């Protein structure tokens, strides 16, 4: 299957007066056409930096190296003028807090049609018709009327639906969603996930879903990339995440999440702290300091290597099936 997006050896470094933060440290990832992948990690793992690096919306204090091949074209090498033709057209993005990304002084409708007008893809009248159709598709009742509403007249869940409509109006090939359901109530989250899944299927669109919630990732995506210390430590098919997880970090994460189908008892936890932003990476395995299976060989950095088809792990001593 051809890849819509292929990332090779991506590094992102933030530097401001005297301090250097290495957010991404040589990351590889591929997204086949029409697939959904989830990027999962705890705070400081670099997952949001990755999403912003693909869109090239990182602040100017950052420097990026490596390759981000989208449709065979290296986005990192594009002049900013050409990147603007891709952003919001072939690649769209939605964020955690829709109220922060919408202009409170413009109607929701005006903002939804903006990508179409910016990219000269439709006349205002056509754009309006398309927007109202889309509002209907994303499950907003009475779209004609809602088109003329201001953001404050929408609830959080409805605003996120409107953001999705805005992101989809240019029929992008790729949608990047950065924690889009984190601020929502659990029932609304489930509805938005169901909606995203259906829209993606109908449109054959590819999706990158960034989240800290491993269970949500497994619900929405075909494949999961687990990040730690700015690196991918495991890449696994989401249907195999519990039974075949191989990295001790992923194994530990799954066990530390409270289950609802067993009697509550003490939870497993991973000792120590995640690598903090700005902290120097260890020369060896990034997880070694917290790993209960640590061996002398872990002083060397393990590469992300395949263990089976579409399952890669960066660990010298991957877990066996069924073990903890």
């Amino acid at each position, binding site marked *: 299957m051809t890849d819509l997006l292929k990332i090779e050896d991506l590094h992102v470094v933030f530097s401001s007066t005297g301090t250097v933060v290495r957010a991404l440290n040589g990351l590889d990832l591929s997204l086949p056409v029409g697939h959904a992948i989830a990027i999962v990690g*705890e*705070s400081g793992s670099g997952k949001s930096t990755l999403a912003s690096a693909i869109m090239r919306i990182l602040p100017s204090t950052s420097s990026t190296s490596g390759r981000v091949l989208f449709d065979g074209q290296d986005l990192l090498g594009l002049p900013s003028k050409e990147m603007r033709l891709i952003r919001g057209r072939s690649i769209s993005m939605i964020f955690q807090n829709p109220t922060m990304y919408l202009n409170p002084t413009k109607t929701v409708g005006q903002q939804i049609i903006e990508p179409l007008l910016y990219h000269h893809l439709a006349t205002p009248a056509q754009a309006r018709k398309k927007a109202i159709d889309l509002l209907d598709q994303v499950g907003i*009742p009475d779209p004609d009327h809602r088109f003329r509403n201001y953001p404050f007249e929408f*609830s*959080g*869940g*409805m605003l996120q639906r409107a953001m999705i409509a805005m992101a989809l109006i240019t029929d992008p090939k790729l949608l990047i969603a950065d924690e889009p359901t984190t601020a929502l*109530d*659990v*029932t*609304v*989250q*489930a*509805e938005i*996930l*169901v909606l995203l*899944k259906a829209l993606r299927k109908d449109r054959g669109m590819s999706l990158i879903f960034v989240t*800290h*919630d*491993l*269970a*949500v990732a*497994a*619900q*929405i995506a075909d494949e999961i990339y687990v990040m730690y210390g700015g690196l991918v430590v495991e890449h696994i098919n*989401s*249907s195999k*995440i*519990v*039974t075949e997880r191989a990295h001790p970090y992923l194994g*530990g*994460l*799954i066990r*530390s*999440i*409270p*289950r*609802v*189908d067993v*009697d*509550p008892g*003490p*939870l*497993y*936890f*991973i000792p120590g*702290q*995640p690598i*903090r932003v700005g902290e120097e990476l260890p020369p060896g395995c990034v997880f070694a300091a917290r790993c209960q299976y640590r061996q002398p060989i872990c002083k060397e950095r393990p590469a992300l290597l395949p263990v089976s088809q579409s399952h890669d792990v960066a660990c010298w001593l991957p877990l066996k099936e069924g073990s903890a």
Partner: protein
Amino acid sequence: MIREPARSDLDLGILARLHNVTKAYHTRHGELLACDQINLTVRKGGSVGIVGESGSGKSTLVRILQLIVRPTEGEVWLDEVRVSSLPERKLKPYRRNVQFVAQDPFGSLFPHMTVIQNVMEPLYVHGIGDRTSREGIALALLEQVGLSSDHLFVYPHEISGGQQQRVAIARALSLSPQLLILDEAVASLDVSIQAQVLNLLQELKKGLGLTFVFVSHNLAVIRQICDETVVMYLGRIVEQGNSRELFRNPSHPYTQALVRSIPAFTATGVTPLPPGKLMTGELVNSSGTSQGCSYYPRCPFAERVCLNENPELRQLRDGRWVSCHFAERLGAFSE
């Protein structure tokens, strides 16, 4: 079905009680009932989880329990005293008995004080002991919450979020409160750290016989650490009962929607996304205006009676409380 022994058999007594508590706020759009005739009993040594979506009144409810917000109507009882009718100046000793841990640990610690000073501060405010004895209490508490001696004389910004939350818990325990209220206390923590804090709370509950009220939007967390769960919707309690029972067999349609929405792992994978629509329409705040069930506009099972009659909170045969006309029919195992 084998019935569990009634909870009252193991009772150590009642610690806090809300009786018909209503809190109304006056807004530009008229009166808003944040809490509407809430009855809640917190037993000594118990753990009560409160869930509900944003705007359901759960934060107002705990503020009333904390004696920060006074109810418009109804009574608040704390350890056999009707504190809701006491004047402000007499509340201080009762406030001491109810302590609070907030969502953002860094925002709730004093940034200009070291970890140990933070834990000693409430003792100072309440004039307990001298400097040496206050230090002794703080040291013991910090050890109890699992902070090593390296962390005593550092400032909050120098430690991680999980450690900050431990300090906040130690500080809340410094006055030996009878009731600890935790509002989204693990929501900002990474899961591996969240697990440690949840385990700590369980240990404190067993070790100190601590009573707590835990507010969270994360239902799996509530089920993990609370014996009893209260589900709120638009200022009202819609379902209340033993956590495991309530999650296994939710009776109110709103609780059903909540439980079916929980993303969680199972032995072999992950819970599936709910098929079809969980709820119809949007949150409509009709509190105070409509005479019918407040969940009516969103309920997929609603009938005519739901529009006209607000269902009373009533007890089902398995001991749980539900406010739904059709609870028996909707809860598969209830009668």
